[in-house]
């Protein structure tokens, strides 16, 4: 404390610079702490690895039937559509649709009879009915969500009810005539 008196001149400027630098470095340090604290919330390596693409054989699915499977913990419907269902899907005037998409956009060329969609209603995430025999398929031969009454057509498009969007199509590709790789 002996030479405690402040000298005038450049001193205040230098002091301000020091204070500002220290504060800035402190803010950077506190900010970088957020990286691990928030980063840990992201899916971990095991979850990511378990989300690798999966192979599926479509041959066992008879015409008019649908199966359910999981990929990345999400439910997926795979339906082998009847001629009638395909025709209905193609006949729709897409201008009348809430989420306009053609049936071709939602299937793979040459494999139109297979429809692959996520089994989660776009309203609030319930599982729509219509995949198992005996379940209501809604007014458009597709799916019907019992939670809030959304009707999807045989192309998985929203036709009636509160849901805003069509059932999304997961990424997939045909690896053989009746084999697909999802993911």
């Amino acid at each position, binding site marked *: *404390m002996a*030479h*405690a*008196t*402040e000298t005038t001149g450049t001193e205040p400027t230098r*002091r301000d610079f*020091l*204070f500002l*630098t*220290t504060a800035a*470095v*402190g803010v*950077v*340090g506190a900010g*970088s702490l957020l990286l691990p604290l928030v980063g840990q919330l992201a899916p971990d*390596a*095991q979850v990511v*690895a*378990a989300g*690798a693409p999966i192979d599926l054989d479509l041959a066992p699915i008879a015409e008019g039937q649908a199966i359910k499977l999981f990929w990345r913990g999400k439910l997926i419907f795979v339906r082998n559509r009847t001629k009638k269902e395909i025709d209905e899907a193609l006949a729709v005037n897409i201008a009348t649709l809430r989420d306009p998409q053609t049936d071709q956009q939602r299937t793979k060329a040459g494999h139109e009879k297979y429809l692959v969609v996520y089994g989660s209603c776009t309203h609030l995430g319930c599982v729509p009915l219509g995949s198992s025999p005996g379940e209501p398929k809604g007014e458009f031969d597709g799916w019907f969500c019992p939670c809030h009454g959304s009707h999807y057509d045989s192309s998985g498009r929203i036709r009636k009810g509160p849901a805003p969007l069509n059932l999304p199509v997961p990424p997939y590709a045909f690896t053989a005539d009746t084999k697909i790789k999802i993911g």
Partner: protein
Amino acid sequence: MKTTSFRRALTGLVTGLAIAAVSPVLAAEGAPKPPRVSWSFSGPFGTFDRAQLQRGFKIYKEVCASCHGASLVSFRNLAEPGGPEFSRGQVAALAATYQIKDGPNEAGEMFERPGRPADRFPSPFPNELAARAANGGAYPVDMSVLAKARTYERGFPWFIFDIFTQYQENGPDYIHALLTGYKDPPQGFPALLPGQNYNEYMSGHLIAMPKPLNDGQVEYPKGADGKAQAPETVDQYSKDVTAFMMWMAEPHLEARKRMGLQVMLFLALFAGLLYFTKKKIWSRLPDHASVH
């Protein structure tokens, strides 16, 4: 004088502790300390030697894995940064050579399918009892974290120095010593029973695992000159497989040490700035009436 007697008590105490500190060294003379190995992953800048980890994996796969599992390690880890860094293709191909039990399928039955990178290394035995039954009662332990689960006593005062020298390869040194420590029992050692082997570094010198590595047992990849990348000797095998075990036990070691350097440098800078800031602030003390 009072103070003298305190000093005397103090001296007595220190002497007592010194005796206590020295005696374990005397007591433990039976088991030699593992020799220090120079590891690429030691010290603040340590990193794994990719080629060494790949050789170590080969030894694990061809020798150890027939008895020892590594159930916490996945095939995918072999391709991750900071490890052996095989290519993703190599790992996928390797995984596919394993049959992994999966299921149940639609019929409710378990089935086997080719491995995927996300699968963990399959264990050689379905459970510990099966492992014991197949190994004369001894359990070949899982190797996933073994390099961290094994150690040897450093003793006073070495364990204090270790804080500053960052010596922490007690486990790897011990494992390397153990793998190279198979010897004929010395004169006068009780005759070995079936299933017992003499090892210089095992506590009690008796180990159930027979000598696992022999010179020339595992073929190493050839370098450009047509010679093996590293000597095909027990010593080199031991070093390589131990390094691989260290990576299995601490797969993020490189990332940790790298981040450590950044954090230490940052903190040192910040501490320096704070020191001068603190000095500045305190230097204005007598005048601070107006400030506050």
